[in-house]
């Protein structure tokens, strides 16, 4: 932690107070907690089996027995949504880790070295941004085959340039700072400077980006599953549930409503969390408000 930001935090009210003061952050934390809790509970308990077929109870409208109704195989939609949360979270975590794990070092190197390295990294990210993400994800899954793991990779690849750009943009200015220049003169290596001075000062930017990319990854996973390329049965996934719902949309609209609500709920929570984190962590935003 640099002294500058330490003193900034010290001069402000305590962290707990600031967290509670941000409505976005509180709602975001609650929603994210519910999402994770739902996924965790599904490991030990769901109202019904999310995979067992029961034709006797197929296509039932929401009721006290089946809160969210049943699908064309008689499976309980609520149970499927709970298990589907697992899949969404797992895919998104890996996608963000892949993106940040490769993108942040790339961006850091580009900022530290500048020159042609910077140019190459930036042109590569231009290139990656030039392809509509979904389209490339479709091609990648066409090459490696559909499935949750390949969806993770396909989405992760798209997070790389995002993290590279954000890291580069946030750390560029820091390299011009006096204390960084001083460290350089003292013979510290670029790696050490990045680890000691740069990353700690941009971690709030990265944290916000992580929540944003997490939300985008949930949508992307749902989109890939929707076109049949994400998680595969019997593992329920929200996007696939929506796709399956489409032929039954006349007779069983609940099949199309609840999985979509789940996606929106998750993304909304993560976006609020991101906004909230920015509110309390980014000094610039704080001053503007």
């Amino acid at each position, binding site marked *: 932690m640099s002294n500058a930001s330490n003193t900034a935090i010290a001069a402000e009210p305590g962290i707990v107070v600031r967290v509670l003061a941000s409505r976005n952050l509180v709602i975001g934390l609650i929603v994210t907690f519910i999402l994770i809790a739902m996924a965790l509970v599904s490991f030990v308990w769901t109202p019904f089996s999310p995979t067992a077929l029961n034709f006797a109870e197929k296509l039932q409208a929401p009721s006290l027995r089946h809160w969210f109704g049943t699908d064309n195989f008689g499976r309980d939609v609520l149970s499927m949504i709970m298990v589907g949360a697992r899949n969404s979270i797992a895919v998104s975590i890996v996608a963000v880790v892949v993106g940040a794990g490769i993108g942040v070092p790339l961006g850091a190197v580009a900022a530290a070295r500048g020159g042609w390295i910077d140019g190459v990294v930036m*042109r590569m990210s*231009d*290139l990656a*941004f*030039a*392809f*509509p*993400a*979904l*389209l490339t994800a*479709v*091609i990648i899954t*066409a*090459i490696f085959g559909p499935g949750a793991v390949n969806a993770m990779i396909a989405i992760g690849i798209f997070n790389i340039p995002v993290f590279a750009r954000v890291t580069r943009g946030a750390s*560029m200015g820091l390299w011009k700072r006096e204390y960084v220049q001083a460290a350089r003169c003292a013979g510290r290596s670029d790696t050490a400077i990045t680890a000691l001075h740069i990353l700690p000062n941009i971690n709030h930017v990265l944290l916000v980006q992580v929540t944003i990319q997490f*939300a985008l990854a949930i*949508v992307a996973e*749902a*989109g890939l599953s*929707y*076109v049949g390329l994400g998680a595969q049965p019997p593992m329920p996934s929200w996007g696939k549930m*929506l796709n399956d*719902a*489409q032929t039954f*949309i*006349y007779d069983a*609209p609940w099949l*199309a*409503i609840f*999985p*979509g609500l789940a*996606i*929106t*709920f998750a*993304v*909304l929570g993560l*976006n*609020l969390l991101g906004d909230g984190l920015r509110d309390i962590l980014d000094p610039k935003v704080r001053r503007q408000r």
Partner: protein
Amino acid sequence: MISFISGRLLSLMVTTLVASIVVFMLMQVLPGDPALIILGMNAEPETVAALHRQLGFDQPMWLRYLQWIGGFFVGDFGTSITYSVPISELLGPRIMVTVPLALMSMLISIFGAIVIGVYAAANRGKIGDTIAMGIAQIGVAIPNFWLALLLILLFALKLLWFPASGFSGWDDGIWNGLRSLVLPALALGLPLAAILGRVTRSAVIETLGEDFIRTARAKGLSRSAALWKHAVPNALIPVVTIVGLQFSFLLAGTIIIENVFNLPGIGRLVFQAIAQRDLVTVQSLVTLLAASVIIVNFVVDLVYGYLDPRLSNGGH
């Protein structure tokens, strides 16, 4: 400025070229043999080999690439493996679906953004602001393909205002064509409107705080006149720039929305071509899409450079 533009132009061409190589290589490693797909489950191996020769697959890779890219830059995108017709012939009618769809959703998003953003800015800090931004927050979170399903449920199945899917074609009259594009355009445009609405709000608030508006207000300009005559037009510049930057997302969006609504647009064509391993069509279309994103980004950069001369001096 000129060196800035020519530099960017060169890097634009190089990026497009590299994109074409990447796409071509991806097509080479894509598993699945188009000849086997055409000939089906009873095909004899020598029949498949004969079709390979007919399709020119026996030629070396670099030669096929050069032939394709050479034609590509003069507007000859090659011949579809599946349909045996020039790809430009397939492309024509599909552009007439995708481009109107993209334009309609852009209009919807800009209009929606202004309504919600200006309203929120004018009511900054009040309950109206909170509600408007709450709606925007939800709008950002809704995936467009789910919104599409909801719109179908409400407007096509319950109210029967619009067709649930499909495209009747422009032959039946412009109105019929537009009618089948309304729901897809809404599904694409509304979430974008939510994103842009938030940008509009902060842009308007920022402009309202600037000196020239304060001066005008001090000279007796009414609040609404200041808002509509000065703040909104000035705030539109960053908004339109963001619209340009969202172009790639819009393209990706049309791909999935065209599939939800079964619209015969470019997105569906690419999708089908991938499924049928119509490799020439896929590589030409994907490269075209990438090139269009690159060009739009270039134009946005130019606008930016024009607005902010610091950028063109090469400073970070």
